[in-house]
């Protein structure tokens, strides 16, 4: 259906999206790059001189930066581990015959649809609070001291909250992939004498490799930018214990109003995200093509 007329119509129809997204990409990015080489602080109006890579060296040598990188990796790695392993487990479970499967599915899927600020607040105040939270009550009931989650293990607590939010996503994807597996393959394996574990290891798991890869890729992209949960529970603290790269840049830009340094940080975040994306894309190149 390719006539000159339809092709020029197609160009016109696709133009707004392309132009808007192009603008969205180029203009703010260009400005970020530009600001990153200026001394520019919103609290100190005046000229904004060009200072080359000073912002970058300031940002990168800040000990907070090292903490932020480590925390970012821990956050992403931690959530990925919990959600992928938990997702596989839940997918297996939900695939079994049972009564009320539809309702269990709803129960398991629900956390993904709760807005991040609500889930963070509910977990922080009503569940994890060392005085009034449910966990505190439960600890007291068995004679243990309540655990001050956000003071003692802020990053781990945030990992827990975010994992709770993203577990449904992983479960749903992996369950969908699992249910697309042709049962004939499994039946043939069973006839050949394979145990349930063997069947899982040699047939189900490889079939799901692609879905697992997709889950990892997509979640990583979103997890690099965890923000609301940190803002609402710890504000990055105590100190920088729960600051990730996103939060560090935010703090630099909108709390300390140091636009120059913040922009440099933003560029660093983009570069890192791209590295992760390329690295991951290569890893999944095989899986997605097959």
């Amino acid at each position: 259906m390719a006539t000159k007329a339809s092709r020029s119509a197609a160009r016109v129809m696709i133009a707004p999206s392309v132009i808007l997204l192009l603008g969205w990409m180029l203009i703010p990015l260009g400005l970020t790059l530009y600001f990153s080489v200026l001394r520019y602080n919103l609290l100190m109006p005046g000229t904004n001189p060009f200072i080359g890579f000073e912002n970058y060296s300031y940002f990168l040598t800040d000990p907070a930066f090292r903490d932020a990188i480590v925390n970012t990796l821990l956050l992403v790695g931690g959530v990925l581990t919990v959600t992928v392993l938990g997702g596989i487990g839940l997918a297996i479970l939900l695939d079994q015959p049972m009564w009320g499967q539809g309702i269990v599915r709803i129960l398991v899927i629900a956390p993904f649809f709760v807005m991040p600020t609500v889930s963070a607040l509910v977990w922080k105040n009503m569940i994890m609070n060392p005085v009034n939270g449910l966990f505190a009550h439960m600890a007291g009931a068995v004679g243990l001291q309540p655990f001050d989650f956000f003071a003692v293990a802020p990053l781990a607590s945030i990992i827990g909250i975010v994992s709770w939010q993203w577990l449904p996503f992983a479960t749903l994807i992996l369950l969908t992939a699992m249910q697309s597996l042709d049962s004939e393959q499994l039946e043939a394996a069973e006839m050949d004498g394979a145990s349930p574990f063997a069947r899982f290891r040699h047939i189900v798991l490889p079939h799901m490799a692609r879905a697992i890869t997709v889950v990892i890729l997509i979640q990583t992209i979103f997890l690099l930018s965890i923000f609301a949960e940190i803002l609402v529970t710890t504000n990055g603290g105590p100190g920088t214990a729960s600051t990730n790269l996103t939060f560090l840049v935010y703090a630099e830009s909108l709390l300390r109003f140091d636009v120059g340094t913040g922009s440099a940080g933003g560029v660093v975040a983009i570069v890192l995200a791209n590295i992760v994306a390329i690295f991951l894309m290569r890893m999944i190149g095989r899986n997605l093509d097959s």
Partner: protein
Amino acid sequence: MARAIDPRRKALNTAIAWTIGIMIFFPILWTFLTSFKTEAQAIADPPVFFLFDWTTENYRAVQERSDYFRHFWNSVVISVGSTLIGLAIAIPAAWSMAFVPGRHTKNILMWMLSTKMLPPVGVLVPIYLIFRDLSLLDTQVGLIIVLTLINLPIIVWMLYTYFREIPAEILEAARMDGASLRSEVLYILLPMAVPGIASTMLLNIILAWNEAFWTLNLTAARAAPLTAFIASYSSPEGLFYAKLSAASTMAIAPILIMGWFSQKQLVRGLTFGAVK
């Protein structure tokens, strides 16, 4: 597998699954229950589950904070607004990619999806400054602009996948029947694509409603949607669990319901076709 399923195994599965399901769902359930307690009961030790005096005073208290409904309305406006505008821009793009594919169509699509992978913090500063200078900070319009742009790739992608399921021959028949491009899209394509468009709208409203980066950084008191408003409950003064629960329940209930209907769309829209 048409074999008889051992009822004992089924019962065991059911027990395990329901236990885990309730455990996962529990925070939401707890929030819902607490919203009907008094503040004192909300922090009671041992915690009360169902046997308490149910009251709706928290809901009334939250509503009496006259700004609650303004923030609720903000959420509605920016979610629905950015979805409708996104659709208006995306439908033509998806038509062109699905029915008149060119050499670069796949690349353009991949590029669009890649714009979603940009960490928002990388453009936080310029967007903030631009909005400040254009008086778009703390406005619904500003948020709608940003939300439209960040979700446009997903809307385009989803519509593209739905449009591809429509046989091109039917649109060709419309052309042979004398339909102009406008008629072809309006009278043939859109009516056939209604389920796909509805699914896309559903998913996008959910994503926009729950968005918690731009909505937190670009708003203050006036245009803050529920994401930001709830965040303001985070200062630790005083006992407020019951009211927090009421405010939270009202904030998440619409999306929980919509989410129940949109599981398939979620898989389609957020895995970019890699999982079916």
